[in-house]
């Protein structure tokens, strides 16, 4: 078990009256209004000022006209999970502004479009009415562009109120409009108009204050899907089959961009093939066809696509074909909430397809791990000759995360057990595709095109014996299935190992995985600081579980297992793996509103169960 160090105390505590570098800004707009550029300018400004940030987009399944919220969190302690409370609201959506304001905690601040007349709603908030239309008109004479430029006004207003450094705002803006200097000038004028207006109208700074610190040096900001795509790029992927689906599309779109840029020969030829398939079934089929041929192939999808791929995944498992499948989870069942986040596919993916199947499932918790798992998944798929899943989610995949830069893969690619023509000559042609020569359940394969009379074998999803011959014999079937189980068991210690994120002798432990990690880290601090409950924290990063998971549970009296799904899917996988005696120590904590988990909800839920389990001191 390895240990990671968490260094979150990056700055001194703020003066109690103000929220120095520790608050969240929520921008409530209508989707399709171009507010994303403004939000990214805010995000990057804070980041450039050295303040740890995270950016989360809560968007509808719609092209234009429905409400969307973007939340930027500044956290001097480096927390990058979602913060439950909104401290600073920018209310621009007439349809939601009243609810948005009513949902705030007392003391919060509100920038709003003046005609919305929100200040009468509550008396315990600080209001900043801004006449957006009046301000934008003089800086943007072309009326049809105003809709796009208008949102930059709030950047200027917020910059003044929270004391952003204007040179950093400009730098962030120019970065955003790198290729469009004219648009940058226009938007800069809008920001300045908002800034000047606010300076005159609101001379008092807000309680949400920003101040340069040193919390982002050397860090990058990236979405998990871009990180996963980079992982595939550096894993040497050559075939990509995909079908668009939210929230996974951007992974393959990033990957295609990277491949076009970095994977052409000097003569301009492609060392990759990307196919937008007719559906997810075909996408998965292409990956298996390519994997059978010996290529590194990937697809990326979300829940509904996983459902469609299930038949092919069973083929990949039984015929033992390497494949890498990213599942960027969204809320199911069925179409569910397509633009909200969940960890609801875990148990489905673990044994996807009919009959007895068991897959290898990687569970990245950070953008760095989306990259690392991207690289590792291909090695594992070829080593174990089986489909490997990388389970990310919408929160991790589509939101902006701060991270240390990724590290270049040091290990050479592992292409697994492949017999060449030369090997076959040495073996005098005596081999069988599914013979367990090494006792690890993994056979040797040959690749189509291998120039030896004995190289060819027949791949099939129907019953087969150790020599890949069609067989309906019970003994052949059992031998094959038992070997597949051995192979899977053997993978336990080869997958990304569980991380002991925090140790404690309290006897109370927490197991979490995936994007829950970021809220979990903060929730642990809350419990320790507020109620003296010091939980040990193990972060699981793959299924099947390494043996250290059982060791962790054995050292605890109670272990809270946190899932972002209704049924406690990780809890049940652990229960099945640990057996009834150790399993009795597990307690399930579930969050499944579709929003990224926040620390407060986690610490409240764990504390409530803990209070029931033992009398409070």
């Amino acid at each position, binding site marked *: 078990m390895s240990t990671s160090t968490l260094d979150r105390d990056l700055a001194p505590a703020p003066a109690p009256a103000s929220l120095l570098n520790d608050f969240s800004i929520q921008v409530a707009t209508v989707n399709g209004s171009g507010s994303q550029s403004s939000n990214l300018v805010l995000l990057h400004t804070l980041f450039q000022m050295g303040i740890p940030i995270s950016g989360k987009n809560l968007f509808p399944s719609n092209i234009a006209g429905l409400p969307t919220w973007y939340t930027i969190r500044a956290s001097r302690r480096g927390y990058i999970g979602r913060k439950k409370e909104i401290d600073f609201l920018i209310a621009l959506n007439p349809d939601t502004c009243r609810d948005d304001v009513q949902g705030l905690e007392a003391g919060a601040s509100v920038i709003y479009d003046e005609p919305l007349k929100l200040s009468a709603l509550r008396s315990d908030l600080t209001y900043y009415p801004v006449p957006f239309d009046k301000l934008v008109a003089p800086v943007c004479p072309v009326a049809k562009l105003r809709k796009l430029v208008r949102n930059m006004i709030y950047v200027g207003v917020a910059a003044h109120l929270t004391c952003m450094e204007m040179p950093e705002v400009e730098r962030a803006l120019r970065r955003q409009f790198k290729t469009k200097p004219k648009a940058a000038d226009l938007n800069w004028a809008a920001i300045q108009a908002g800034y000047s207006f606010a300076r005159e109208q609101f001379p008092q700074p807000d309680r949400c204050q920003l101040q340069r610190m040193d919390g982002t040096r*050397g860090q990058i900001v990236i979405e998990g899907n871009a990180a996963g795509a980079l992982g595939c790029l550096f894993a040497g992927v050559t*075939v990509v089959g995909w079908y668009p689906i939210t929230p996974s599309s951007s992974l393959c779109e990033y990957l295609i961009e990277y491949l076009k840029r970095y994977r052409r020969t000097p003569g301009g030829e492609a060392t*990759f093939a990307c196919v937008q398939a007719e559906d997810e079934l075909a996408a998965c089929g292409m990956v298996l066809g390519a994997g059978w041929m010996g290529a590194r192939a990937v697809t990326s999808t979300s829940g509904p696509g996983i459902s469609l791929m299930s038949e092919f995944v069973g083929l990949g498992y039984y015929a033992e074909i390497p494949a890498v499948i990213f599942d960027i989870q969204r809320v199911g069942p069925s179409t569910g909430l397509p633009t909200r986040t969940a960890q609801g596919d875990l148990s489905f993916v673990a044994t996807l397809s009919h009959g007895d199947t068991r897959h290898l499932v990687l569970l990245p918790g950070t953008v760095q791990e989306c990259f690392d798992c991207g690289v590792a998944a291909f090695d594992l798929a070829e080593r174990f000759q089986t489909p490997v899943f990388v389970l990310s989610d919408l929160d991790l995949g589509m939101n902006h995360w701060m991270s240390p830069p990724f590290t270049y893969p040091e290990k050479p*690619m592992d292409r697994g057990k492949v017999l060449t023509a030369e090997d076959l000559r040495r073996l005098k042609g005596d081999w069988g595709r599914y013979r367990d020569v090494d006792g690890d359940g993994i056979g040797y394969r040959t690749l189509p095109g291998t120039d*030896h009379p004995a190289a060819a074998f*027949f791949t099939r999803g129907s019953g087969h014996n150790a020599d890949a011959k069609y067989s309906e014999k019970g003994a052949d079937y059992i031998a094959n299935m038992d070997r597949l189980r051995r192979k899977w068991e053997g993978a336990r210690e080869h997958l990304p190992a569980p991380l002991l994120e925090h140790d404690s002798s309290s006897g109370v432990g927490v197991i979490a995985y995936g994007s829950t990690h970021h809220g979990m880290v903060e929730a642990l601090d809350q419990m320790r600081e507020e109620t003296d409950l010091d939980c040990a924290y193990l972060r699981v990063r793959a299924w099947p579980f390494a043996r250290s998971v059982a060791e962790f549970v054995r050292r605890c009296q109670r272990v809270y297992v946190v899932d972002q799904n209704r049924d406690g899917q990780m809890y049940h996988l652990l229960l099945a793996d640990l057996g009834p005696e150790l399993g009795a120590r597990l307690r399930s904590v579930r969050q499944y509103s579709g929003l990224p988990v926040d620390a407060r909800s986690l610490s409240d839920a764990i504390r409530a169960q803990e209070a029931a389990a033992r009398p409070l001191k």
Partner: protein
Amino acid sequence: MPTTTSTPASTPSPKVNRIGLPATDYRGAKTTLCAGCGHNAISERIIDACFEMGIDPHRFVKLSGIGCSSKAPTYFLGRSFGFNSVHGRMPSIATGAVLANRTLQALGVSGDGDTASIGLGQFIHLMRRNLPLIYIIEDNGVYGLTKGQFSATADLGAKQKSGVINELPALDTCALAVLSGATFVARSFSGDKKQLTAILKAALAHRGTVMIDVISPCVTFNDHEGSTKSYKYVLEHEEALQEVSFVPAFDDIAVDYDPGTTLDVTMHDGSHLRLRKLAQDFDPSNGQQALDVLTAAHQSGEVLTGVFYLDTTKPDFVQQLGLVGEPLAHLPEAVVRPPRAVLDEVMASLL
């Protein structure tokens, strides 16, 4: 060696092909299909065509879906890699396989159920991409393995063995292939040795998607009176659009032909496909004309065979994607893993 059923080389076999292999090297396992099944005849023609064309079995892959037809690849070219995949989804497996290794020749075998019902979506998209692949439908109008239900290529009014009459019109896979973008579309009959062998050889010389619908009677479930896919019906109603012959590039014998009655098409490898006009004037480069003759044949109840469409100019999918010459599957790490500097560059852009 357990994976091949070919006769040992010690058997005296004077007759070898142009790459020095005997015909037995192109055979597969013993068929388990019914005696008299049209599919077995198609396997024989594939063996003949590959032997005569001197196909290197190691450089050849055979893929299939599910059904009687899809079992067939086990029964030919035992020295070639095979993949019996899932129902109706062979096209996607083939797509991934061909893109991963563009240097191998690929042949897919499907059936009418596998193609025209469960696999219709993948079938059409395969044609649309013009993937270099020979796609054979072994078409008998029924589901054999599940005991004789109609498939979507069963003709309107055709009678099932149980007496049930088909009340839905047939899908014409050749018309669909022409419409969808295949560059070589033909129909043949498992019992027409000469025509089928010639078409298969031409298929082996083509770069792009070749779609051959082969009417292949099911002797067990669809060979009765009232069936439009029985041997008797097809023999009585087959109408050949042209007389098809093939002159391979390696054959330097010049065969005369009359340009007034015979169309000569030069294939990608320099071979010649010769189509001698029979009843009507027909231009296989004209897709609209193909659709017209297919529609007319449906109306008259004829089983029209021949080469309906041929385009030797359209780039195939591998060319469209601009792939390197070497198989993607075999590119070394130095080529497929970008250097450290690339990661540094990307990271710097995210700072």
